[in-house]
């Protein structure tokens, strides 16, 4: 019965959100079935729809896993946004300084680089940087909570703004290319580029930015599953989340677990940098994140903080995101902002799932749990 509930409430929440979203669409004078049909059709077309949907899903899997791991330890990580910004910048930084000669828009060399490492060294180094930088930034609120007891929600919100300002400063004042009108760093060395999946999947054009990072995201789901349910550390994290005083009584240092969980969480959020910098834009671009960190909260929640649930939820959100693109052009009054509205309503319904206990309980389908 428990597993049934785990599955059925997220599904009900999604359906309910689509119904409420449909009412909004009706209200502005369009046909919800037409709009939803357009969205799903566009997101699932081959190769562009599916290629881009999986590309959009990649960062959401990472941030969803990040939030889920912290949640298993009883922590709410609102800071994935800041963690992924720090990590993406750090990844770009390493790939620039060890990436060989950088030239400016006039073809003149800029002295940012100190060495030129081969791909076999540079790619793992850059990936490790993404994980470690995110982990370090994530560990800060963990440390503050463990040491001073200050609440991680507030600290992660504050650290988001600090992170964004910090990387924007380094981009603007230190790693910009002269003459570049955009707020972005110099390009990373080509040795740090990771291949797009189009280069070895037949029928998938290489212009679609879906890359190796997506496969890493799938591996991350598996690794986090094993970490949480098959290792001592994972067990201690879950024990801390389930009942901190019992865990402490059982000899687990909950403070250490809090820092560890936040570091793992930050490291996962940081892996967004691999997709963005090494796989897609090949530089750090200021403000690149489309609320990935916050959507990650929704993804984790909808996926019941389970790695495989996170994967499914990230795919759903990516379908919405990709599906929103043609909505602007092919409907009269509906804009692609319907996607954010739908996402928000899904979160509200998942968070307030008690709303569904009444109607279903009446038909004897689901019993309200006695907590």
């Amino acid at each position, binding site marked *: 019965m428990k597993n049934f509930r785990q599955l059925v409430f997220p599904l009900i929440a999604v359906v309910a959100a689509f119904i409420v979203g449909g009412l*909004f669409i009706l209200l*502005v*004078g369009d046909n919800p079935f037409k709009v939803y049909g357009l969205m799903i059709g566009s997101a699932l077309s081959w190769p562009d729809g599916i290629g881009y949907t999986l590309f959009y899903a990649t960062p959401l899997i990472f941030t969803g896993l990040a939030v889920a791991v912290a949640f298993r330890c009883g922590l*709410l990580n*609102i800071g994935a946004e800041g963690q992924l910004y720090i990590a993406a910048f750090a990844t770009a930084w390493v790939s620039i300084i060890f990436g060989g000669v950088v030239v400016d828009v006039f073809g003149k060399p800029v002295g940012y680089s100190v060495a030129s490492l081969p791909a076999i060294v540079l790619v793992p180094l850059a990936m490790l940087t993404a994980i470690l930088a995110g982990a370090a930034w994530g560990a800060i609120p963990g440390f*503050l909570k463990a*040491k*001073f007891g*200050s*609440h991680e*929600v*507030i*600290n992660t*919100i*504050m*650290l988001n*703004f*600090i992170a964004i*300002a*910090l990387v*924007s*400063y380094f981009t*603007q*004042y230190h790693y910009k290319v002269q003459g570049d009108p955009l707020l972005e760093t110099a390009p990373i060395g080509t040795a740090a580029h990771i291949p797009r999946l189009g280069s070895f999947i037949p029928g998938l054009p290489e212009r679609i930015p879906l890359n190796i990072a997506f496969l890493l995201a799938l591996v991350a789901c598996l690794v986090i599953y094993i970490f949480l349910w098959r290792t001592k550390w994972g067990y201690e994290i879950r024990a801390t989340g389930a009942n901190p005083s019992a865990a402490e009584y059982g000899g687990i240092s909950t403070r250490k677990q809090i820092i560890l969980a936040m570091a793992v969480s930050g490291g996962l959020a940081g892996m967004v940098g691999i997709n963005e910098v090494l796989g897609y834009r090949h530089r750090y671009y200021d403000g690149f994140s489309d*609320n990935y960190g*916050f*959507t990650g*909260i*929704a993804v984790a*929640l909808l996926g019941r903080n389970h790695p495989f649930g996170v994967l499914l939820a990230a795919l759903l959100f990516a379908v919405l995101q990709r599906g929103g693109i043609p909505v*602007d052009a092919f409907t009269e*009054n*509906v*804009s*692609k*902002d*319907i*996607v*954010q*509205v739908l*996402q*928000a*309503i899904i*979160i*509200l319904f998942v*968070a*307030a*799932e*008690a*709303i569904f206990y009444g109607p279903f309980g009446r038909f004897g389908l689901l019993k309200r749990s006695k907590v």
Partner: protein
Amino acid sequence: MSEIINISLIFSTIRLATPLLLAALGGLFSERAGIINIALEGLMLSGAFTAAAVTYYTGSPWVGLLAGVGAGMLVAAIHGVACIRFKADQVVSGTAINILMLGLPAFIGGALFASTGSTPTVPKEQLIPWTPIVLGFLVFVPLVWYVLYRTPFGLRLRAVGENPEAADAAGISVKRIRYTAVLLSGALAGIGGAYLSIGQSSLFTRNMTSGRGFIALAALIFGKWRPIQTMLACLLFGFTEALAIQLQGVKISGEEIPNQFIQMVPYLLTIIVLAGFIGQSRAPRALGIPYEKER
């Protein structure tokens, strides 16, 4: 130095602190009653959009302001119902409201004005003169202080936020007080948002609060959940914002001060105060805990 610190800096500090203060005082009601309100950002956005749109249609900024307050309360009501009636996680519900208010104004704006980026510009003579609102600032703080510490409602509100079981045993309806507090926070944040769109500016643009709701939240914590201290925190954060604007492109002994470092100040200060380095900042005891009535 005198070219930086001058009378216009003081005025712009007060002007920039006003929306922060309105939202922070709103957050104060909600949080002192035990409901976490990270939705301030979304509440401000709903007020800002509705005020601009209604002013555009009616030509009256006061009707617009009223509509902004109404919108803030309506959105706050969603947060309230989710958190109080259905015991949703308050941080998650707040996050959902913030995401909703990034999308919904653009969605409605797209249908009404064929522009998802912004509302049409409201003519200058239809803007709210900012003086009354800024003066209201001076009235609001003592008023909130009085309500909180000198009225039965204020006493009940604080009781509900600290010890709902005891409040309940004393015959206070925890639910009713919490709903009232959340609605008040929506109203105040709504005014704060309206002030941004039809006071300081002349139209609503997407995400125009750009984090002010979170700065207001930071000010509330920095001000230790008390009205006077919260006002001082808002003034301090308004000052850093004003200074950041003033210092843009200014060189001090040949060096430009990067804007980003000034922007960080409110957030850094909040982390420091929360860690207990500048006195203890203690949240209301029942903050974030849904109340389950004993049967």
